[in-house]
């Protein structure tokens, strides 16, 4: 337990990039030899990004948690196949995006989570204090963005996610998705176009 806490704090403190890379490599190598502790250090480092990726992709906290667990299980089962040809981040993003997309495709066509909206509405009625109001506004904005993102195709959503939130370059997104960079770009353009159309619509309203 003490060890895990120290790891969390070190990651929280954001170590210098190259040291982090070196450590990650060491953890990957150890995991490939069957070291579960090393693997769970990788989980601790990546779970935040992976969970938020699938949360934005799926727009459903429960499903996102399930998918994240699936993703880490897949990473665990396949880690011996990771040969270091691409970076570990590319590899794990590929697994995460593929799992989220296949989860989206397994869904019935219309999935709409009203949880956030009802939550916002009930809060609006009763809350008055400044901090609560800020929270409500943030929740409102979040649900608006989630709803907008849900209008994109799963492929467009994946590109927007990797570009905006994971701050990957077009080239590495192409690498992650196994697509030519031109396709990635056109999906990005189309996705932003749709989001812009929605925003304009909201402003005109």
């Amino acid at each position: 337990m003490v060890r895990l806490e120290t790891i969390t704090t070190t990651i929280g403190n954001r170590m210098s990039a190259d040291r982090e890379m070196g450590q990650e490599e060491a953890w990957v190598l150890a995991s490939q030899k069957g070291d579960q502790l090393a693997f769970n250090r990788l989980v601790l480092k990546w779970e935040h990004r992976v969970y938020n990726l699938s949360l934005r992709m799926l727009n459903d906290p429960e499903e996102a948690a399930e998918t994240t667990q699936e993703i880490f299980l897949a990473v665990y089962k396949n880690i011996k196949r990771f040969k270091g040809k691409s970076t570990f981040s590319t590899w794990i993003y590929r697994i995460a995006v593929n799992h989220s997309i296949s989860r989206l495709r397994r869904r019935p066509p219309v999935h709409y989570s009203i949880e956030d909206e009802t939550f916002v509405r009930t809060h609006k009625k009763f809350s008055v204090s400044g901090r609560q109001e800020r929270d409500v506004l943030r929740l409102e904005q979040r649900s608006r963005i989630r709803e907008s993102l849900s209008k994109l195709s799963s492929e467009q959503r994946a590109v927007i996610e990797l570009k905006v939130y994971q701050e990957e370059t077009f080239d590495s997104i192409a690498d992650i998705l196994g697509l030519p960079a031109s396709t990635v770009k056109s999906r990005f353009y189309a996705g932003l176009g749709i989001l812009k159309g929605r925003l304009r619509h909201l402003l005109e309203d």
Partner: protein
Amino acid sequence: MMGKSCDDYQELMKDRLAGELEASLEEVLTEHLSECAQCTREAELLQNVWKELEAYDDEAVPGHFFVYEPERFSLSEVFTRLSFPWKFATLGASAALVLVAVLALLTASLKIEPGAVVLTFGTAKPESAQFDSMKAELTDHLRAVSREEKAEWMSEFKNEFSSALSESEQKQQTLVKVALEELDGRNSRANQVKDAQLQARLNASLKSFGSAMLARHDRDIATVNRQLTGFANYDRFQANQTDAIMTTLVEMAGQDPIRR
């Protein structure tokens, strides 16, 4: 830069937001925006979209996603973890197994016969030799039995068979007869019962008819009697009245002369 449409500039705007716009194109875009009001509006809109997207901050994980795999033990590790009686039992059982296997292997023999490879465990009993001798004896005996004897057996058997056959025929016939008689008997008995029933029913209905008739007869007689007595009473009443009138008349006739 000539030949670029506003749509092309939109892509440049998006590239710039993505942080992947080449430095040389940066200037071109800025220049166009200073001239084109529509593209400036679009750029602002896109900027707002981007801001909104970026405002979506990450959420905390609901729990950790650690992966655990159940530990796997080697055979020797499992054995060392066993308690003493289990160790003893396991050892004993495996020793017995080994003993049986060794014995089986020691007594095993491999025989190659035409069309089959035979693996036998244990020593073979001289069963086949015994069987062969018995077979030979039997064939010898059969050969020794002459044809005449055989014919005699056959005729004897035929006789026996035919007598048995006739006996059984007779038996069958008697059985059929008995059955028919019984059937007849049953039929006549059944008819008798039916007749009696019919008779009884007839008697019953006759009886009820007769009694009904009698009752009616009685009723009629009673009615007639009632009427007759009625008539008789009326006659008597009339006779009384005439008598009374007559006496009154007589009295009146008798009185008048006295008063006068």
